[in-house]
């Protein structure tokens, strides 16, 4: 392909396709290179997407048959011990009314393909089954990409790197430092098929409505991690993940941990008689603000997971991907107008990110990753003791409650010193305030 494009985009995920859609709408000649057999073939997330950010790119996404699985009306947080644990649930009718599609589940193989098709409809050229193996450079400037196709060099005025968190291209070219194990979580996920009615009954929702469950506790075996259950139309997404450096230290097999989670007393009844349909694994870019690389350079920009734009506390990533892709496209439009594709010419991208919730939220939670990594009691002793306390207080055995409280206090302070407990609460609060 000797053709020259205005913009070459690496990766047809939410960031890349959003950028392509915005650019193509303005008549910019954009090519999107996707390594999967089709867009979405390699992609995985828990599966929650956000209407606000999508609507900025495809305002009428409902009418355009966006492959929504279920509109989320209820969010649950579980704090689990080995034998059970606590559950907190928030349900709001507003999410069925004015706030409908605030968040909804998707299967990424379907959604990413749909979004890429929207970009293609607007005139972008989406080329799947093509790996970008290198960047073309002239001096320090990026002037295109090299692909694994014969004669696969593609020249472009600007390259947008939206190739996700796992990027051998980043490692090879050094435009972003290679990710370190403590900067990502490794998550495994299974899609478990159940009938639509069964899901409605088990999660107490009507047709089209859904629930998200985020579970923390001993299920990640003392590692900094989280498990989720998200409702799709006729399946559940059941996933569990933990920081990769923890996996490496503790020699835990991710798929065994997933199987243990599926057998947990809170989980087993929800997935009973379900049929596993797909198994996959992916990183989560959870290191936050301090791991964000330089997002612009001469002739290139970085968006989405590739730029580590992910809010670990709120599990928001797809929204940041779509919005950073849109911002990148807007900055590229300015650069095209001025004919300046240098780092300075692309500066509009950074000012947009800084002026938005993306950088504001990343900054707000910049200490959250370190907090979790430094306090592994959150995933071991604490949930066990919290469950012990509840079990003691709920057991009717003739013991006066005051004695029970005393026993609980003794056990908790034996397992964790009062000083350490205070420290966890204080550090935790400071990391999210």
């Amino acid at each position, binding site marked *: 392909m000797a053709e020259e494009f205005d913009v070459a985009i690496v990766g047809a995920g939410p960031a890349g396709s959003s950028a392509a859609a915005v650019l193509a709408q303005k008549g910019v000649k954009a090519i999107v290179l996707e390594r999967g057999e089709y867009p979405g073939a390699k992609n995985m997330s828990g599966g929650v997407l956000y209407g606000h950010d999508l609507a900025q790119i495809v305002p009428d996404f409902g009418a355009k048959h966006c492959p929504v699985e279920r509109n989320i009306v209820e969010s649950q947080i579980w704090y689990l011990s080995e034998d059970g644990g606590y559950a907190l649930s928030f349900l709001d009718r507003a999410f069925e009314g004015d706030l409908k599609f605030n968040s909804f589940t998707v*299967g990424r193989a379907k959604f990413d393909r749909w979004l890429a098709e929207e970009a293609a409809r607007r005139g972008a050229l989406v080329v799947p*089954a093509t790996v970008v193996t290198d960047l073309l450079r002239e001096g320090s400037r990026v002037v295109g990409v090299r692909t694994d196709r014969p004669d696969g060099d593609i020249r472009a005025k600007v390259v947008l790197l939206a190739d996700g968190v796992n990027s051998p291209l980043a490692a090879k070219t050094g435009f972003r430092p290679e990710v370190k194990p403590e900067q990502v979580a490794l998550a495994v996920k299974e899609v478990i098929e159940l009938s639509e009615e069964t899901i409605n009954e088990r999660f107490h929702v009507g047709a089209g409505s859904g629930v998200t469950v985020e579970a923390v506790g001993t299920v990640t075996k003392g590692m900094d991690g989280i498990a989720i259950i998200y409702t799709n139309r006729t399946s559940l997404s059941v996933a569990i993940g933990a920081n990769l450096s923890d996996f490496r230290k503790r020699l835990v097999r991710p798929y065994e941990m997933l199987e243990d989670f599926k057998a947990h007393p809170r989980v087993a009844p929800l997935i009973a008689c379900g049929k596993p*349909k797909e198994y996959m694994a992916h990183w989560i870019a959870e290191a936050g603000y301090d791991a964000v690389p330089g997002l612009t350079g001469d002739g290139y920009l970085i968006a989405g997971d590739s730029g580590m734009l992910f809010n670990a506390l709120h599990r928001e990533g797809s929204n940041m991907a779509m919005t950073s892709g849109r911002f990148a496209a807007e900055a590229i439009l300015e650069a095209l107008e001025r004919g300046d594709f240098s780092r300075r010419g692309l500066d509009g991208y950074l000012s947009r990110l800084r002026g938005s919730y993306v950088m504001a939220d990343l900054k707000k939670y910049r200490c959250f990753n370190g907090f979790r990594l430094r306090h592994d009691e959150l995933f071991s002793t604490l949930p066990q003791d919290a469950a012990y306390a509840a079990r003691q207080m709920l057991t009717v055995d003739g013991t006066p409650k005051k004695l029970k409280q005393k026993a609980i206090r003794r056990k908790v302070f034996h397992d964790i010193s009062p000083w350490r407990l205070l420290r966890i609460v204080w550090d935790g609060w400071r990391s999210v305030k």
Partner: protein
Amino acid sequence: MSVRIEDKLFLDRFRVADEAHIRIADGEVCGNLCIEQPCLYFCPANVYRLEKGRIVVAWEGCVECGSCRIGCPYLNIEWRFPTGGCGVSHRFG
């Protein structure tokens, strides 16, 4: 809990490439220097297996997370993307 990874990988659709996308750079490092061999555990597809004291690479079932590339204590694993269109293809995602 005992679980067979084969049962999970069996659910997935793979288009196997002609050549391997994973290679152990120096087998001696795994045998002589690496005590814990964490890749045998953290790999979600159990790509790395011990056979007769040596680590073998069942790259055909790789689910492409990349963990071995950065998780190997000796950065002794060469890992690239499979050829375009090859490897795992999610149907749901």
